[in-house]
């Protein structure tokens, strides 16, 4: 959903027929190019991504999990956008990639759940897999999937919101 929208919304510059519509896209968002911020972000992002994965993997055995880890991993793209400008980062990041991230995440979860049914177990029964420590690896795989979904949604939402909205459309007064 969000991957789909982030590419198309906000860029409707072709509406020359209605002069009262002001499109507020990322060109009008103030952006200051700062060497300090860019360098810091460049140094810090690998560590943040690692921390995100670390938290995701911890979901199986201790405090952590896909939701927190995915949120941390998703902030990497947000930091890049703050440092290098939202427009360039949006151009660099194909919306299909974000959509793919979400799809792969949900797909992983569903595949793990249905795979155990195929192997003769119950729905989502990790121990049905003929792997040592199947529960542990199964949960870790599912947490990684959740992490991918959360990271994808956060970046997708960020670009959607950053794209702004079209003003000049009359808002109906609700009763």
């Amino acid at each position, binding site marked *: *959903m969000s*991957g*789909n*929208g982030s590419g198309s919304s906000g860029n409707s510059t*072709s*509406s020359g*027929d*209605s002069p009262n*519509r002001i499109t507020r896209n990322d060109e009008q968002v103030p952006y200051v190019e700062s060497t300090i911020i860019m360098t810091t972000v460049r140094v810090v992002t690998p560590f943040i991504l690692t921390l995100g994965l670390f938290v995701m993997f911890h979901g199986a055995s201790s405090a952590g999990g896909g939701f927190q880890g995915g949120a941390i991993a998703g902030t990497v793209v947000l930091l890049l956008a703050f440092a290098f400008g939202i427009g360039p980062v949006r151009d660099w990041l194909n919306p*299909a990639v974000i*959509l*793919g991230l*979400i*799809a792969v995440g*949900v*797909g992983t979860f*569903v595949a793990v*759940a*249905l795979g155990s*049914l195929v192997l003769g*177990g*119950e*729905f*989502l*029964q*990790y*121990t*049905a897999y003929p792997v040592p420590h199947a529960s542990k690896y199964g949960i870790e795989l599912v947490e990684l999937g959740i992490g991918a979904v959360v990271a994808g949604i956060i970046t997708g939402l960020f670009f959607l919101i950053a794209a702004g909205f079209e003003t000049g*459309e*009359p*808002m*109906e007064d*609700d009763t």
Partner: protein
Amino acid sequence: MSELLPLLVAVPIVGALVGLVVGYKFERLAWPLAVVTSLAHTALAAFVAFEVYAGGEPLSYAVGGFQPPFGIELVVDGLNAAVVVLVAAVALGILAYARRAGPHSAAFYTGYLLLVAGLSGMSVTGDMFNLYVFLEITGLAAYALVATGDDGRSAVGALKYLLVGTVGASLFLVGIGYAFVATGTLNMADLAEKLAGVGYGSTLVRASFAFVVTGLAVKTALYPLHTWQPEAYASAPDSVSALISALVSTVSAYALGRVIFSVYTVDFLSSVAFAREFVLVLAGISIIAGSVLAVMQTELKRMLAYSSVSQFGLVVAAFAIANDAAVTGGVVHLVGHAVMKGGLFLAVGAIAARTGARYVGEFDGLAARAPLLSAALATLSLSMVGVPPAVGFVGKWYIALGAIQSQLWPIAVVILLSTLLTLAYFLRIVERMYFRSAAPREAPAERSTGTGAAAVADGGANDDSDTDDERPTLGRGSDVDFGSPSAGMVAVILVAALLAVALGPLVSTFEPLLEPTLDLLLQP
């Protein structure tokens, strides 16, 4: 055959995922994929329901092989088998309508399938926390669907829905928390035993009941807590209004009944008189206030929305009365209301597409201009009022019977009064359609809901590119852009009208099927 229960939730999720990915590249494939998924889901639901009613035994399933009360349990008995089939069938019908009426985007079909997944999950789960999770999935999908209209009005409606809905879900969660503190379990069957062990006099137990009921009452939209509902229904595209009005509040009301019977049990209601009075008064006020507010509306979709407030008051009252007749009536009315209200919203949408009429004043002489749709609208309206032999009558009859059996005279009077008010707000439509000639002023189409500006803005690029996104959505923008309703849309409305009449006589065959379940739920 209980292995099928998790598939009821998993199949729509897989469909949503495939639809999202394929629809990104090939938007035209999103609808066929959604239909295939919905057909598979309906077949599953019908098969599960058949097993339950033929076997007479509830099906239950432990997810992941973790045995309840520790693992998550899925249970289908006579009470929710009907709800599962209802969700699948209504969703399929509205999909047929949405093919032409829109919204035409892969995002809409994804949201639609996620909503079906959430509703199925709420219907089959036997675990309180799992119920909360599916309540949130349902809610989030519903907020997104309401916002699928492009203009400001649906965005405001969705935001209001989101704020109030989240508060409701949070209250529900607080209630679960209190019950968990009191008992240390979340499984419904296990909670029922342990809550009795803790004692119904315990403040924790009573507080948890109050929070859970209030939270679900927000989601069901009972009177003082209904504020999100009219604007959400009225501002959404017509397909979405029908889907949400027919299913979301219905499944929330089912969840309320399930919680009352399977978690707190009838014993709790009879030993804590205040709890039963609390629910009955809430429901009674909702019945009257919803009807009165509906009479005051001029926009048809808002009128139907307030009518739902009143009808769900009836259902919740039935669950609080909690005897055989009343609960049978509650389930019948739950299913019947979904068919009737879904059909009514679709009929209003199709009539607006043909004539542009969305306000009561514009319905004069409509029967001459759109005879088939007017007949369907009139049939559904009269069924909602409770004219025999339609299903609306049977449901109300059983509920009133139950109220009288339990000597709850005020509720019986309230039901009678609300029937009169329902007659008032539906009959004025029928009267205008059939017994008045159309006024000479012929510019009703300009006065549609929505702003119209969104449609104007899109109108520039209409001819050169006919991708799915460019096709107008019914219920958003101007109805003139939409053209006339397709044969499929009219067929869905006619099926709904026929069902509303045909389901009434069928209740007598449904009642014995429900009886074993009610014996289990109502006799402790």
